[in-house]
């Protein structure tokens, strides 16, 4: 019952957040000076052509009408039509999202694969050289800008050793491995800072658990230090770790915007930058809304998952 009430409450605030976010994005884009129709047709356009285009793009409606048309359209999967390409934004997004989401997921998997063993290693050697080494490495990992790391990866692994392509994306129809290869260096670059953060969370979560009474009981029962860590420590430390993993996906998703620039990947990030330089604001507006929607939804799901694991949270406001 408490869980249902919690879900209902969180769903309510999810919808409210999405509504306010859409209002903010729409208002900000509305401030932009200039008329997209005259931008598209140039300064020599005939007034009649201009009026026709404005009607076609729905620019002649009132601001309120346009907001509801935009939100209503998005709810039915219609994101409007790009001013410059004259193609539905939904189609453009569908093409690009096939690069951005796999890239973010790939980076997430890498970050977990690096962080869990590293955190476990550091926690089991607390205060020793190995622990300090891992902590030092995480400090560096957090300080290195991922786009700079990406450039260094290209220099070493793409240009010097030629193990991976330096940029570009072949498209999924060219085969799974070719795409994985193209996404590997970008995913490593994206994963680095997140792996560093996750290692620290994993380490401190484990250390916290190690001090618990049930760990001492497990040792008293005759389990070895290693067995206690694996059977009891790891499972209990996973709760905060999983929360961070969930939240990291939204960071990684947003992070792809910059990394795509370094590797010339045709994802959502490049779409946004191309649309900004072409002043194709309907694309900017819809893609930004989509990303914000993704972030809010992920946070919502993480909250629910957390409450499912830890019942105490359901009653907290």
């Amino acid at each position, binding site marked *: 019952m408490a869980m249902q009430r919690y879900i209902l409450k969180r769903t309510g605030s999810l919808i409210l957040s999405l509504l306010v*976010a859409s209002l903010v*994005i729409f208002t900000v884009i509305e401030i932009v000076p200039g008329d997209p129709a005259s931008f598209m047709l140039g300064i020599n356009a005939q007034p009649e052509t201009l009026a026709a285009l404005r009607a076609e793009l729905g620019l002649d409606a009132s601001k309120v009408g346009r907001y509801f048309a935009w939100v209503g359209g998005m709810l039915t999967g219609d994101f409007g039509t790009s001013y410059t390409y004259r193609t539905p934004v939904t189609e453009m997004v569908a093409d690009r999202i096939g690069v951005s989401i796999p890239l973010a997921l790939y980076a997430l998997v890498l970050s977990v694969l690096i962080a869990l063993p590293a955190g476990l290693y550091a926690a089991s050697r607390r205060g020793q050289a190995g622990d300090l080494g891992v902590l030092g490495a995480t400090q560096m990992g957090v*300080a290195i800008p991922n786009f700079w790391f990406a*450039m260094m990866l*290209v220099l070493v692994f793409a240009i010097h050793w030629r193990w991976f392509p330096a940029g570009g994306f072949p498209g999924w129809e060219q085969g799974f491995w070719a795409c994985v290869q193209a996404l590997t260096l970008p995913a490593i670059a994206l994963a680095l800072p997140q792996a560093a953060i996750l290692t620290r969370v994993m380490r401190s979560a484990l250390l916290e658990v190690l001090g618990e009474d049930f760990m001492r009981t497990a040792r008293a029962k005759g389990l070895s230090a290693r067995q206690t860590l694996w059977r009891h420590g790891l499972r209990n430390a996973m709760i905060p770790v999983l929360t961070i993993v969930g939240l990291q996906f939204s*960071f990684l998703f*947003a992070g792809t915007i910059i990394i795509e620039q370094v590797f010339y990947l045709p994802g959502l990030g490049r779409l946004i930058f191309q649309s900004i330089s072409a002043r194709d604001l309907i694309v900017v507006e819809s893609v*930004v809304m989509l990303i914000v929607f993704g972030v809010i939804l992920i946070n919502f799901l993480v909250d629910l998952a957390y409450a499912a694991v830890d019942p105490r949270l359901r009653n907290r406001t």
Partner: protein
Amino acid sequence: MSRPLILGACLSAGFVAMALLSLVWTPHDHTLLDIPGKLQTPGGTHLLGTDHLGRDILSMVMVGTRTSIAVALVALVIGLCLGVPLGLAAAARKGSWLDETIMRGNDIIFAFPLLVMAILITAVFGPSAVNAIIAFGLFNIPVFARVTRGAALPLWEREFILAARVAGKHAQRISVEHILPNVMNLLIVQSTIQFALGIQVEAALSFVGLGVQPPTPSLGRMLADAQTLVTLAPHLAVVPGVAIILIVLGLNLLGDGLRDALDPRLRRRLA
């Protein structure tokens, strides 16, 4: 004092000193073009080499560090000046409509990934250092509001606050005279973290062309220029990159060290 704290303080102070020094002196004029002397490797008269236009990289890093620090610092001040009072006000009236509005407003800003917010702002107002500052400043507001509120809430339950209330002090005065000094340590630590983040954000935004515009040098812009030349002259990318890493590393170590030094309880818990 712990070793990380000393190392962090030295690194941070070194870069701040370098940025300040660039106001009065740089080894060469960072705007001076010297095409025949372009892409020189480090050494000789140009200690860190020259870029594709023959400009001295050390001088550009000095001025670029100043730009990056200025952007991060102003954004930090915006976050502090708006976020802290909001956090104090929310804590003073916990559960009221004011608290709810402030916290829900924070949630909305948090829902926008920093980069997306910066993109939205620059898409509308055009790319510039000022807009990068506004974007990061906006992002800093809820961060400080949250930290302040979180730290202030338990204080309101304490006896010395109760005593101040009994003495007839107004909530606003209690916030400024008693709550603020007690959350100051936390704010100092958070400030170093946000400062480090600001350096990284400035670099990222300038790298994709949304931040500082040419000809003003910034560490991120230098990396953007280096991207196409990295095979020819790797030092163009390595030098500004290492500068960013050292500044951020220094600030993070300083933040961690200060947190431990200012709050011994935290040190025991985290160890």
